[in-house]
């Protein structure tokens, strides 16, 4: 029985600004002012994305610049497999090749300029452009990531729809599963799935390569913890929405429980999970490194671990930057998905 007293911001945000018996004019789609506003918003979003990428690149560059000692020495040592010091004459060609002799600010501008032109640098160990190496290896990793994301959503939604607010026991079972799985390390889950389903039961191949059957266990390993995570936020939201008066309204029209869950509640409840997916895509790619290592699956994982071990900084930072790009793109997509799911946001 409370009467809300709106804050000034709410007042300003109220449709038409004014209330009262006169019907406020709704915004009509396609008017010039509206499309201008949308264009401005899209523009601002893109600029923001670029700013994030620029800041990420700056961070990555300065982490590289923090490298202790002479990078040229390190490179020569890695190449020869020995630990020794070198004369200036020996170091100079290496420094020239990689531009280590230039002032830091010039190196920074070169790096950013290179990124802008799609030049992610040259690998210290493989002496090839980073982008070439990555694009050669990344295919199976992207397939794995995509499959894991799909698995995660299917499991999380099925679990939420089936168990949210279904009596104390069933709900506890569902949310218990989510809490346990959300915290499972990939290597552990992977090993258990591998031992049980590939080695003992022989349902799936132990080393599946890029075959479809070989994709199932790695994708489940990568997807199940995310399913637990997505499931947690979706369930919280789902249970809140189930208590909303509009849900009671739908029931009072004669709608069954499953109909209410699928046709009304789900759409409201997936928004936080959509946000989470944008964030999770980057984490999934990095998690794929571990999963690939457990299942001996091809992808960037092996390359990345070798690169980190052999101090191949350009290759590792190239992957880091690519993941940042994926992260930014995913979040632009999340924004679009948001407006598609909740059209209210298109006007704001």
């Amino acid at each position, binding site marked *: 029985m409370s009467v809300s007293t709106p804050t000034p911001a709410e007042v300003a945000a109220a449709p038409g600004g004014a209330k009262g*018996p006169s019907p406020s004019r709704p915004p009509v789609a396609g008017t010039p002012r509206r499309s201008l506003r949308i264009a401005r918003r899209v523009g601002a979003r893109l600029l923001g994305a670029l700013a994030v990428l620029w800041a990420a690149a700056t961070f990555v560059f300065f982490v590289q610049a923090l490298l202790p000692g002479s990078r040229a020495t390190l490179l020569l040592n890695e190449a020869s497999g020995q630990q020794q010091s070198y004369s200036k004459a020996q170091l100079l060609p290496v420094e020239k090749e990689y531009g280590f002799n230039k002032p830091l600010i010039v190196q920074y501008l070169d790096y950013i300029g290179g990124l802008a032109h799609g030049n992610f640098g040259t690998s210290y160990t493989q002496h090839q452009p980073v982008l070439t190496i990555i694009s050669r290896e990344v295919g199976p990793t992207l397939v794995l990531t995509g499959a894991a994301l799909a698995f995660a959503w299917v499991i999380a939604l099925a679990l939420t729809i089936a168990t949210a607010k279904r009596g104390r026991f069933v709900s506890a079972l569902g949310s218990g599963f989510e809490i346990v799985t959300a915290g499972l390390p990939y290597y552990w889950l992977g090993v258990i799935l591998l031992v049980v389903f590939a080695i003992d039961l022989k349902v799936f191949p132990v080393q599946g390569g890029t075959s479809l059957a070989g994709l199932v266990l790695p994708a489940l390993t990568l997807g199940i913890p995310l399913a637990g995570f997505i499931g947690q936020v979706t369930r919280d939201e789902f249970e809140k929405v189930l208590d909303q*008066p509009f849900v009671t309204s739908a029931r*009072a029209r*004669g709608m069954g429980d499953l109909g209410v869950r699928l046709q009304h509640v789900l759409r409201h409840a997936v928004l936080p999970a959509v946000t989470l997916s944008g964030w999770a895509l980057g984490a999934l790619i990095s998690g794929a490194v571990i999963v690939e290592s457990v299942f001996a699956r091809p992808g960037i994982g092996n390359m990345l671990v070798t690169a980190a071990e052999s101090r191949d900084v350009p290759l590792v930072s190239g992957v880091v930057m690519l993941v940042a790009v994926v992260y930014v793109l995913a979040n632009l997509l999340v924004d679009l998905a948001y407006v598609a799911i909740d059209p209210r946001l298109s006007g*704001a």
Partner: protein
Amino acid sequence: MRFDQEPDGTRELLRVENLNVGFGEGRHARPVVKGVSFSLSAGRCLAIVGESGSGKSVTARTLVGLTGGRSHVQADRLELGGRSLIGLRDRQWRGIRGSQVGFILQDALVSLDQLRPVGKEIEEALRLHRWGTSRTRRQRAVELLEMVGVPEPEVRARQRPGELSGGLRQRALIASALALDPPLVIADEPTTALDVTIQAQVLDQLEATKRRGKALILISHDLAVVSRLADTVAVMNDGRILEYGRASELFAAPKHEYTKALIGAIPSAESRGARLSPAPRRVALGLPPRRETAGGPVLEAEGLIKRFRGPDGIHRTVVDEVSFTLGQGETLGIVGESGSGKTTTARLALALAEPDEGAVRLAGQPWTGISEKQRRERRRQITVVYQDPLSSFDPRWSVGQVLLDSLSPTEHPSAAARKKRVLELLELVGLQEEHLTRRPLQLSGGQRQRVAIARALGPAPRAIVCDEPVSALDVSIQAQVLDLLADLQAELGVSYLFISHDLGVIHHISDRVLVMSEGRVVEHGFSEEVLTRPRHPYTQRLVASLPTLERPTPDVLALTPESRRSLGAPRARAVQAA
């Protein structure tokens, strides 16, 4: 109590006998509805009235089988159109919901799906009962919108509730409940949280529904709202119907003590100067009155303008050329609908926001346009009581800490003096020493608001800004708080800037009144003058929209001495929060 026939003897559609509803099992079992009986005929309206927790909503939901999984429903008879509703399976209930019983609840902004066009919601009701084809359903939805008075129904059907004005989306909600032409329509608090003009439109539509021959059950906490439509009234409290009978008789000559108290608690023009709650006037503490300053007004506002930038980048003037004065010991009411700028005006008066133009003077000295440092000491002269007291208390603090925090260390230098003052404040607002150690979360709504008032009195202010202080309270608690405010004013000579959306409350408590609409003051003057003979069209519409209840003469409402005692004392027992 048995009610074998409708008071007017018409053919009945619905019959409920000895309905009991409880929640939980075994030791946790909690009865919510206890032995309720009523009946209803086509073309008639039954109003079920009660305060929160009275069981009225649960009673309504029993009739559509939506009391929830952990409930137990028992009844001797529960019949709709001659068919028993006892022990139905979910599938059978779904056939009844929507087609036999239309259910309208609350504000359309929350009871329609915000993500879908309203037309789809209406079509959904038809689709669920396999009515027509998708094309005919779309047509029917448009017709229904037209029937409830929505202009341009084809366009509106494609819009979402958020894109419609308050009145239109309320109509769309009603249309979705009427889609299958159900013989019984239940409206559960259909006007709660709505502005008074929109409330009037909703009542118009419900009245039209009744005229079309539907049986209507109206659930409300507000006697005045139901008085317009109800043929019979059932007053519920604590799960029981205490009084049941013809509306005209019940309102003119209530028999049950509870009904009398409930009617007496409604603030209105006629209740001015009278007490609303059964509790007697509190004995004054005999405190020295607040230091008087020579004559002048406590607060003066001159040409206040405040603009806010919306999320779309457009500036909106939320407060536009507002001026007023507040004299010592006076109550100035500000009344307006949501979005009228009254809360922003309050914030300007408290100097919690700076006006873009215009100025406020406090006790003759500039109050806006100066630095916070200059203001800080003087803030003790004007304090505030909010609508939601709970959020205005630090959740970690006890009542004692909250009150101590309001005291000036210079005025009460010793710990003993502060302790004495805190106890004095508690007594002023009718609380006991035992409440000192409680957390506000452990108190009832009325007690929390008393603590908020005590805190506002702590610095011994000259004026208190009351921003919707009783809007979240049940009418009986509201009555106690309004009485308390009146007592405190009489005793301490404090001034109130009293903000409310409720014309009745404003009329009851204010000496003078400002009527605000869209940021402007459309009318101001003495309450009697403005609210009984409004000149401005907006005020006229506002006053005309207000459902009123003829207040019976005081002797009709007079309570017996013992019920006076039992009804009057503010509950000392804290409501344990879960």
